[in-house]
């Protein structure tokens, strides 16, 4: 089966978030970048499915030229080919991102059997690009998935719900958005890194489109100041901890 994985390049935020002076984006000048966590699991899942069932894997991202780094990381894990939808680096809306992905998918000669996304990107948390792509392609979409099995042209997907699981079944081709926990992603291999560097990346330049959601500014939330009370040091603090637990009504007094 032919599997496409869509990923996003996101900054690795440190202990606190710093904004650009115009408050429209993060100041990333001192930050490294990574594949958004849910999407890294989507890459791993694509590899496992193709290892089990045969087929091909392609990774796609929409972002600046620097996002080649994330495409190469995915290829170093084992993905065969990569597509960059190149932008000038500004953030694109979910609608524009989805339409551009749809155009790129249609431009590929052969259709994909499975298109994987992360459930939501770590930075924007938009929760919708996969669903929009599925609608435009006329495909079903299951989201928030932490387990996939494929057999006889059908896909069974598991989603955590209320401490248990709800199970969906759809026919291929389909779109699936996955969550961290579906697997533990492998590390890129050295031969994989070398191969990734040599692999030609397909580049497309999509046109930006407007959105009904217009960013005004970003705000780092003010944390509630809590005055921490140190109950003590080491095991000797246990009686005071139990007093606190009792005051909170968490143990019978």
């Amino acid at each position, binding site marked *: 089966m032919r599997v496409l994985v869509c990923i996003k390049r996101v900054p690795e*935020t440190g*202990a*606190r*978030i710093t904004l650009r002076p115009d408050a429209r984006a993060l100041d990333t000048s001192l930050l490294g970048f990574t594949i958004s966590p849910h999407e890294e699991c989507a890459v791993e899942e694509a590899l496992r499915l193709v290892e089990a069932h045969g087929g091909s894997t392609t990774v796609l991202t929409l972002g600046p030229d620097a996002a080649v780094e994330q495409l190469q990381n995915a290829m170093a894990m084992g993905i065969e080919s990569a597509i960059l939808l190149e932008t000038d680096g500004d953030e694109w*809306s*979910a*609608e524009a991102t989805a339409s551009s992905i749809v155009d790129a998918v249609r431009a590929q000669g052969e259709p994909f059997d499975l298109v994987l996304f992360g459930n*939501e990107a*770590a*930075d924007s*948390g*938009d*929760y*919708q690009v996969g*669903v*929009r792509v599925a*609608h435009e392609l006329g495909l*079903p979409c299951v*989201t928030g998935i*932490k387990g996939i099995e494929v057999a006889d042209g059908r896909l069974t997907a598991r989603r*955590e*719900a*209320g*401490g*248990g699981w*709800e*199970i*969906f*079944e759809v*026919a291929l081709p389909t779109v699936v958005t996955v969550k961290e*926990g579906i697997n*533990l992603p492998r590390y890129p291999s050295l031969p994989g890194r070398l191969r990734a560097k040599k692999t030609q990346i397909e580049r497309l330049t999509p046109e930006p489109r407007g*959105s*009904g*959601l*217009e*960013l005004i*500014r*970003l*705000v*780092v*939330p003010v*944390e509630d100041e*809590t005055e*921490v009370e140190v*109950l003590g*040091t*080491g*095991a*000797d*603090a*246990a*009686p005071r*901890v*139990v007093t*606190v*637990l009792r005051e*909170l009504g*968490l*143990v019978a007094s």
Partner: protein
Amino acid sequence: MILCVVDADPLSLEALTFARRLGDDVEAIVFDGADVDGYVARAHRVGLDEYAPEAWAHAIIDLEPDVVVAAGTDRGHEVLAHAAARLGVALAANCVDASVDRDTLLLTRQRWGGSLLEEARLAGSPKLLPMAPHAGGAAPPGAPAEVEELEPSITDEHLRVRVVRREEPTAGAIRLDTARVVVGGGRGVGSKEGFEELEELADLLGGAVGGSRVVTNLGWRPHADQVGQTGARIAPELYIACGVSGAIQHIVGCKAARRILAINKDRNAPIVQRADWAVIGDLHEIVPAIVAELKRAS
């Protein structure tokens, strides 16, 4: 009309409260037979056998609302994303606040799991607003609602994605996201076996055990136990954080906790700065001592 999507998830009550802050003309569309008495005067009940996101979206669109509010859950986001895709309108996920400004809405939504906020303007109609989890309290009920049975014209196409079966949670298991007490462990716990002490403390307090992302990535705990941006958002009365440093990705998962007790070797760890109470030292001495003290006291 402001329409609020309600199902059996308790976060639906937060969505109803949020919807009522936006205006007076609030109605509910009710799935899973949830009870909305006191929150709205008018409700539309949809009888569907199983969860099917496109069918839910279709039923919502059929009512031609101006604004739709849904809970900060997988379902709330998924259903409104389908509605947005079908109607070709924007969707403002993870909303924490909104107010009407003529034809647009001014809103605040969470990014980075809540460690960053975005102020934005939402145009178009309907305006689709899934909330961030734990973004507002639930108001007390008032008068009973007038309930109308709704029969949307659901087709097979709307049901192509639906829950075909479910696996129920283990009987008696305490859920991380609804537990009154959560005992969380981080890298400082040191090993899979190290969590046995945390389990014992959680058992004595009737709570659940959670872990940081490091802990689930190392395989010390299953991923379902992760507290954080890529795991569970918890809201207990007390979160006891043992050997957790407090990276922002973890903090966004536990910031809805009413109180935090940090047990940590490092007095300057970020989690200690965020805590109400702290005990400084080796958690493998402190946690067993608390367990012993609790047993002696009972």
